[in-house]
């Protein structure tokens, strides 16, 4: 064990994801650089990562959201970009993680559609839409389980 001196203390890092036919990750990164004013922006294949003071990051995120409000998704990140404990440049090979992001980005189109539809709803329509239960999967019948179990 050795003393640990943290880097980027007091900063926040946010991921910006985009899944849009009109806006590319490069557009997002370019727009972020335009208003960066010294804040660290890292371009990625899905959008970008922004590291800076909470106010600066919030300002850039608000600017980016305007580009494609329903198709840009933002999330906090614990580690700053390039952290030796997570960065591929130091670890070598494929980086662990992003499985959750991959899984959730598959449903980004449904949520984008939902965001757009909900934005246009009146209070009554929202009440009605929210009252509709999401269908749950039927539990597997015990007889079918037994039948499967008895099969050779």
């Amino acid at each position, binding site marked *: *064990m*050795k*003393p*640990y*001196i*943290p880097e*980027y*203390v*007091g900063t*926040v*890092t946010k*991921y910006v*994801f985009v899944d849009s036919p009109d806006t590319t990750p490069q557009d997002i990164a370019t727009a972020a650089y335009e208003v960066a004013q010294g804040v660290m922006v890292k371009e990625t294949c899905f959008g970008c990562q922004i590291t800076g003071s909470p106010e600066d990051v919030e300002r850039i995120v608000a600017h980016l959201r305007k580009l494609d409000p329903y198709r840009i*998704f*933002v*999330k*906090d*990140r*614990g*580690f700053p970009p390039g*952290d030796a*404990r997570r960065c591929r440049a130091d670890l070598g090979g494929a980086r662990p993680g992003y*499985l*959750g*992001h991959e*899984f*959730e*980005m598959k*449903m*980004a*189109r*449904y*949520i*984008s*559609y*939902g*965001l757009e*539809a*909900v934005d246009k*709803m009146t209070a009554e329509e*929202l*009440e009605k*839409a*929210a009252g*509709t*239960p*999401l*269908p*749950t999967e039927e539990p597997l019948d015990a007889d079918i389980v037994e039948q499967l179990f008895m099969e050779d």
Partner: protein
Amino acid sequence: MVKVFIYPATSLMLSDLVARYGHTPLGSAVSIREHIQTPGFDSPPLQMTAEDPQKGLKWAAVEVPSGIRGRMSLYGPLVEEAEAAIIIDEPELSFGCMGCARTNELLCFMLREKDIPRLELRYPASREEGVTFVAQIKKFLDDLKKEETA
């Protein structure tokens, strides 16, 4: 602005929706950030130290595996801080080892036991379900805002 715990704690969509509708999402990134920005002793690879399972004792008993107690040292303070919670039922993305599975069970149990507003739903699988998913979350978060101002 209400602090809303999101489960799965790493969820991109929940984190985005909570922040989009004007509240503060409490996810694992928040506690990881606090963890790695605190000076101490280096303990590779992820800055977990021997103290973390001890901190986790507050939420999980001593006979519970240290992996769960270590995870609870990150999630426990967030659950205590939470003023509301959004839970996705059986999310595939949180599938992992037994440590993850038991931590997830304990986490959901703690959120359900805590007397806070709670929304439980599941991921959408079509555009229509996407509308319902967003509408339910928006209504829940708007109601929190109304309660806060009342």
